[in-house]
Structures are given as C-alpha cells and as structure tokens.
C-alpha cells in the first residue's frame, strides 16, 4: 500500500462516515429524550430517494433540504405514534423500514429503471478540489454537528430538559415540562438529520439510488449510538471507524488482483460493527425511560 492509496482510502472513509455520523448524532438526540427509533434505515432510504428526485427538479441544495424535510416528516409520524398514542417504538420502526423498502422499490420502478436510478451530475452537490482529492462539503457538516449537539446537550438548559425527558419523565412533568412535546421535537430533529444523511448519499456522494442504497447504515448508526454511549463526540469517532471499514471494503474491491472474494469484503463492515459493539457494551448506560411511552398518572 503506497501513500496515494492511503489518501484515497481516507477520502472514501470520510465520505462513508457522513451518513453514519449524521444519523447516529440525530438518534442520540432522540434517545436522550427517550425515543428509540429503529426506523433510521427506512428514513435514510426514503430521503435518499426523495432527495434525488427533488435535486433533479430544483438543484442539489433543494435536494438536501427536501431530504431533511422528508426525514423530519417520518420522524414526526414516529414521534406522534410513540408519544401521544403510546405506541410500541420497536414495531413502529420496523413498520417504517418495511414501508421504505416498498416505497423506494416501487418509486424506482415508476421511474422506468427497476432497481437503479442515476442522479445527473448537474443535480449533485459540487465537490471541493482539495489536496486530498474531491471532497464533499457535507463532510464539514458531519464534522461540526457532533460538537454542536454535544454543546447543546451538555451546556444548555434545553439540553437538560431533553435529558430530563429521557431519564425521569415524571420529574420533568412535575417541573412543568411538556414531556411529549420535548420527545416529539427531539425525534423529529433526529430524523431530519438522518434525512440529511440519506439525501447526502444520493445527491452528494454515490450519485445514484438503488433499493438497497442504505445497506444497513441505519442499523450501523444504531450500533454507533450504542458504542458511543450517547456521547456525540464518540459517535463521530464511531462513525469514522465504521466509515473506514466501509471505505476499506470499497477500496479492496477496486484492487486489480482480487485477494478475497468480493462477497466476503462486502461483509466486512457488518462484522466490524458486531465486533465493536460486542467490545463496547458493559460500560454504556442508557436513559432510564428509553423506549417507554410516558403515561401521566
């Protein structure tokens, strides 16, 4: 492996990090408030599709914004079901994932190209020419966002309210906090970040939509959240680790001599996720009321 390879590997890893980190940081906000959304995979997929379509209609920025908006809407549906209607969060998430798998596959067929839809270059976010090669500006957002969220949760009053809603909703309620509204806002914001990550995949990174574009990234982001123990800065690190191994898998596939069958290379990110998560558990503590709907007595 020479120097140029290492740089290109790092570049792929940084690009692959973005959706995982953004999704994980969004999920951290939601989980801090007590909502556990396993529908992230579906949000990534739908917003990638919606982002690609709207980028072709109105340009890359519109695409990213629509991706965020679509993510927020799904997050809002999830949050309403699981706050005001006291739903079962796991099942809502599974429903979102199933729905997304159907919707995107259906939409791709309607576009006339079953299974694959390329986003024209004009509709993609422009990449910056840097010393390392073409870099997407969205990487900056993914690098800054964890610090912003960390500051928000640890240093602001609103962040404290967020934690109260997740740790002890009864006490928060007595203190005059509307627990359900806090959770609703948190989950919607988190899903909007996942939506940005999804739109990034189609509009700014891969440049196409397939029906398994998300490829388990939503769940890898969940694993990142577990790894980080709800610390956004560790989520950035975790996102980079998982992004690195995805990048490594992509990079090994491009090698002219095929050292390992490509199927095994494709397994690598998932195996690494399993290993990292099995190693990380034990010291992690989650909010007490995570996954429980808040019922006023």
């Amino acid at each position, binding site marked *: 492996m020479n120097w140029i390879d290492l740089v290109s590997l790092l570049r792929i890893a940084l690009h692959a990090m973005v959706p995982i980190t953004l999704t994980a940081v969004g999920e951290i906000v939601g989980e801090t408030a007590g909502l556990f959304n396993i529908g992230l995979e579906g949000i990534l997929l739908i917003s990638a599709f919606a982002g690609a379509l709207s980028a072709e209609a109105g340009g890359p920025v519109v695409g990213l914004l629509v991706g965020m908006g679509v993510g927020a809407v799904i997050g809002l549906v999830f949050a309403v079901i699981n706050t005001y209607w006291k739903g079962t969060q796991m099942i809502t998430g599974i429903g979102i994932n199933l729905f997304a798998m159907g919707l995107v596959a259906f939409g791709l067929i309607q576009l006339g190209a079953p299974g694959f839809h390329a986003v024209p270059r004009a509709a993609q976010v422009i990449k910056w020419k840097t010393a390392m090669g073409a870099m997407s500006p969205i990487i900056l957002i993914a690098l800054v966002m964890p610090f912003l969220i960390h500051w928000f949760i640890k240093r602001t009053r609103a962040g404290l309210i967020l934690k109260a809603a997740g740790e002890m909703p009864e006490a928060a309620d007595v203190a005059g906090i509307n627990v359900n509204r806090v959770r609703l806002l948190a989950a919607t914001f988190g899903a909007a970040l996942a939506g940005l990550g999804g739109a990034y995949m189609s509009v700014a990174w891969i440049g196409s939509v397939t029906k398994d574009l998300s490829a388990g990234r939503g769940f890898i982001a969940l694993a990142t959240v577990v790894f980080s123990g709800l610390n956004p800065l560790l989520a950035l690190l975790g996102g980079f680790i998982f992004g690195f191994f995805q990048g490594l898998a992509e990079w090994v596939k491009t090698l002219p001599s095929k050292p390992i069958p490509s199927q095994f290379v494709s397994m690598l990110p998932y195996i690494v996720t399993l290993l990292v998560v099995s190693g990380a*558990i034990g010291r992690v503590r989650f909010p007490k009321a995570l996954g429980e709907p808040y019922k006023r007595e």
Partner: protein
Amino acid sequence: MSEQAGPTQSRLLRGVHRTVTGLHPALESMLAALIGLLVGAALMYMWGFNPWRAYWALLRGAYGGSYEWASTLARATPLILTALTFSVCVRAGMFNIGAEGQMFMGAMAAICVALFKMPPGIHLIVGLLFALIAGAAWSIVPAVLKITRGVSEVISTIMFNWIARWLALYIAIFILVDPSRAEKTLTIPVSARFPILVRGTDFSYSFFLAVFAALVLYFVLWHTTMGYEVRAAGLNPTAARYGGIRNKRTMIVSFLLGGITAGLAGATVVMGMPPSYAAFGGGAFPELTNIGFDGMAVAMVGRNHPIGIIVASVLFGGLNAGGRVMQFYGSNPVPLEMVRIVMGAIVLAMSIPELIRLFPAIKSQGERLVAALRRHGRPASKEGSA
C-alpha cells in the same frame, strides 16, 4: 323494551357482548389491515393508478378461485414459519429481526441435499434437518452475544442478516452453483422435493409442515413448563428471575426455536416451490428476499399467536399472490412492491395500541353498543338472582 326482554334474550346479548370484547384484538388487526390498504390506495392514486381496479385484481388474484387459493397458501407457507421466528422471541421479550438471514442459511443448507443421492422421503427429511440446523446455528450467535456481552439483538440480528446475504451469495455463486447455468444453484432432486398438493399449482405439502410447526409451537409455549418460562420471562424478566426462571436459558431456547422455524422457511421455498427448486444467486435471490421481513408483519397482525399467525398468513400470502396478478393487470399494472408498502403501513398501524380509540367516532359507537348491551344484560341478571 329491555325490561320486557326475557332471560334468554339478555343472556344472548351478554354472550354477544363477551364475544365483541373477545374479538377486540382481531378487530384491531382488521382495522390495521384496512388502514394499510387505504395508505396503499392513496399512494396508488397519487401515482396515477386506479386503486379500486388494482385492489379488485389483487382480490381476484388472491382468493378468486381454487388456483388462486392454492397460490395464496403456497406464499403463506414460508411466511407462517418466519412469523413464528419473530413471535417466539417477542413472547420471550426480544425483537429477533434475524429471520431473513436465518432463512437464507436454511435455504442454502437445504440445497446441499442436491450433492448426494438418497431414497425419496428420507432425502426430504435430511434436507429439512440440514435447514433447521443451519437456521438454529445462525440464530444462536446473536443470543450468545446478548447473554455474554449484552449486545442488543436488534443490532446483531440485522448485522447477521447482511452477513448471511453475502455468505449465501458466495455459496450460490462458488460452491452450490449449477455447472450448466451459472446464475442459479443446483436443483433439488425430485426425491427431496415436497410433493405438489394441487396439480398445476405451486401449492405443495410444505404448507402442512408450516401449520404443524405453528401447532407445535403453540403446544410448547402454552402447554409445557419451558414455554411457560419463556412467556413469563417475556412478560416481566425481573419477576421471572425471582420466580426461579433462568432468563438466559429462555433466551437461548426462544432464539433456537426461532432459528429452527426460519431455517425451515428457507427449506420450504427451495424444496416446495415449483418450477425452479433452486435459489437464484444471479438475481440476488428474488424468491427468498424479504420473506423474513414480511414474516414480522404477519406475526404482528397475527398478534404473535401461532393460530393468529396462520390466519394472518392467509392475508399476507394473498397480498403476495394477488400482487403478482395485479402487476400484469391490463391497463392498470401496479408493481408488486406496492404490496410491501401496504405491509409497512399495516405494521405502522399495528404499533399503536388501542388503535380503535384513535377514532372517536368508532369509539363512541362502540361505547354506545357496549352500554346498550350492559343495559340489556343487567336487569335480567338481577331477575335471575331474585
């Protein structure tokens, strides 16, 4: 009028009242299915299809005659088995999303029987054994990771699904590949196939295997000590532990049972689905993909009860069978993927407890009905006691 009503009539009405409350879960499942179909209709309308005609095609393609029923039940077969996987673990208090991967492993293991010859019947049983061992082996690792390292089964089973998918692709392309046709695996020999039940359809005896598995699981869960322990651990793990139930054992047992049924689901597809009797690695397994995920929807609509699952599988098998007719229906061809959208919407609706209460109109009607029934019931019972 209620005062004049004889004791027979009021007893009848009380019976109706009890039946209505007893049917409450079934009614909610039906309401969720209705919501799912409405969401699907709205999306079809948005995309310029005629939802009414599409659903008519779907209905006729699913339940329009004996051929259609056979097709529906054939598609219900693997769904029953993967739904059992999900529901056993839900009963034990866990979310096992790994049916998809365990099913892939089961299917690959079942195809291994094409490598050797055996008398008919025994060959089939050996294939099923292979499949259930492979499914159980694939599901035991997430269970062990959960027990020893505390890894959430939601994350580990999904990772295992992806690993299984790539491993199955590798096996299908490099190990069990058909030498004459590289896009598919070896074909299961006739001696290891499920016999066809209705001539000219793809409905085979594998359906009875699925129903048998559901009945066995019903017996195990509700009529054995082990099943009682599994359910107790699912309802309240802390209380179960105080009651002397070893939660780790119930986790292993429920994952093993789930892995076995998921592995069998893979076997029923490759050994009981004409015409191919093989898996197509070249097309990334169109026959197998999503059976595990659809099974979760079946389990939820079936209220995680083996008998409910059999009923729900007829609905979802019908969606899959009818969807295949719908996508070729004249001027209004709606892609098969619409079926999965409907399933997702059904699951979303199922996640809302007390779904009926969200509809004030239905609720007030229901309350009025219950109140009316109570009014009819009460004086009679007083008369009876007097």
